[in-house]
């Protein structure tokens, strides 16, 4: 049985299609990354998973339970964290934790999480930095040890140290056989923590790939600055975007070594290799369509 099973999910707001047709299955113990630009339908899908909004059609099952009809039982097993966690401004962190414990029962790991994230639960949330607010959101999502963790762009605006702590926690979560569904803008983040990625565009799932396969189709922007005017036939090694005597701007998909071999025969003034942005990866998929 899959941890999450989405079948023909559609969500329309009047004539606007927020999610056109999404079907996907996420195995237990998998970390699934959900990538897409703003307005693609990532958050709408997540809100349907949590029963915040109701699908126009289609079904969602989490641990075999219908997320709409058995929403209370489903949410018993879910932890949720949004990238823009909203808290009660006049409450302390401890007030938030206390309320969740009253609803769900005493947590055995809340204090460990507080210590590990170096979080001060006595401060009022209106005085917390965005990083500390996110720490509290993470504690609230994890403190009842859920089977499925749903994260909506959880590391937006966080410093790299805290990002890494979150990645570490997610890996440990996975090691316990639990499942993570996370939306993200960051390819690096998805590569670091996810097993599989789904790419969504205009409410449609345009691709679902295992991360190792995605890595095979790596894209690079390369700028080569020759010491003197040079004419090079890059052949299969790269696609030339622009070329002017001493400078060549190239686009490489996949293995970069053939290009490095080729340009190593020439005297260079400078060389810039930039990993392609997420948008470029998207474009690859869009062109495939």
């Amino acid at each position, binding site marked *: 049985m899959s941890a999450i099973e989405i079948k023909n999910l559609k969500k329309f707001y009047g004539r606007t299609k927020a999610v056109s047709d999404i079907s996907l299955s996420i195995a237990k113990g998998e970390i699934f990354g959900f990538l897409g630009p703003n307005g693609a339908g990532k958050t709408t899908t997540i*809100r349907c998973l*949590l*029963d*915040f*909004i*109701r699908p126009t059609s289609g079904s969602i099952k989490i641990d075999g339970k219908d997320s709409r009809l058995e*929403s*209370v*039982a489903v*949410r*018993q097993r*879910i*932890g*949720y964290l*949004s990238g*823009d966690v*909203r*808290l*009660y*401004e*006049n409450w302390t962190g401890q007030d*938030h934790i206390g*309320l*969740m414990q*009253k*609803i*769900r029962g005493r947590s055995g790991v809340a204090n460990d999480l507080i210590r590990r994230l170096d979080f001060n639960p006595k401060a009022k949330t209106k005085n917390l930095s965005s990083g500390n607010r996110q720490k509290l959101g993470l504690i*609230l999502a994890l403190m009842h040890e859920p089977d499925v963790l749903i994260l909506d762009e959880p590391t937006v605006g966080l410093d790299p140290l805290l990002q890494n702590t979150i990645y570490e926690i997610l890996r440990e979560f996975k090691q316990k056989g639990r499942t993570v569904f996370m939306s993200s803008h960051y390819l690096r983040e998805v590569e670091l923590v996810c097993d599989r990625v789904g790419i969504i565009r205009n409410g449609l799932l345009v691709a679902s790939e295992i991360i190792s396969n995605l890595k095979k189709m790596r894209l690079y922007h390369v700028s080569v600055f020759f010491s003197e005017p040079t004419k090079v036939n890059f052949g299969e090694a790269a696609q030339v975007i622009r070329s002017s005597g001493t400078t060549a701007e190239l686009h490489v998909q996949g293995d970069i070594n053939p290009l490095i071999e080729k340009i190593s025969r020439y005297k260079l003034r400078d060389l810039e290799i930039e990993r392609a942005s997420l948008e470029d990866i998207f474009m690859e998929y869009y062109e495939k369509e």
Partner: protein
Amino acid sequence: MWAIYWRTIRDRRSSLAIYVAITVILVWLYVSLFPEMAKQSERFNELMKAYPEQLMKAFGIESPGVIFSKLENFLAMEQYSLTWPILLVALFISWGGAALAGEIEKGTIELLLAQPVSRSKLFWSKYLSGLSGLIVFVLVSVYSAIPLAAAYDVSYRLAHFNKMAIIGFLFGWAIFSLAIFFSALFSERGRVYFLTAGVTLIMYVLNLVANLKESLSDLKYLSLFHYFNANDALMENKIDDLSYLVFIVSALVFSGLGALTFTRRDIAV
């Protein structure tokens, strides 16, 4: 469910305490003034006779001579016919608006919706917290007159205050139910305040116009203020059966509609 109920009560206790304190201070003021006013009732009655009869009727004053004869009459006119309902309406429109639309507007509803609590339990937790606040407000603001009257050696009739508490609670229940219905429907507190206050104001004006103009007198039946008759409750120890019916039906209809709306709607922060 009770965790959310108690937490909501805790969050609203300051505003509840402030509103209750204002009403108690006003009652204190009126009770302390009453012995002196009663002594000079002849002069005040003469003064009030100078006002147009229709205007007096519009404010529910049928016979000005009785106002200063009893504490209940004086409080009915000075406190419970206008100031008290305004405070009650303001407090419970605010409570109702913050209960659901306020949580959606601030985004904190996500924290609650992500918990294993059904929408209907969430709605009723918020609803019952408001109802409990209303009971506290009515009990303290109405019955505070009793020890104050005793302190100033003014005679009082407890049964009349009981009736006032009942009609006050029913009126507040209907207003709060209307507010929480709009709160379940909308995602911004401002719209809830605007609509509930707007409907309440229209009802107040309808009742006023109906009392001023004979030909429009039937309009009063569209107003909850017609059924909230503090004068009858406090002066006559009387509540019309129709008032019970209108308040209870309004409260049940709006709270039911609110629960239905909240459990069915999409909630996107």
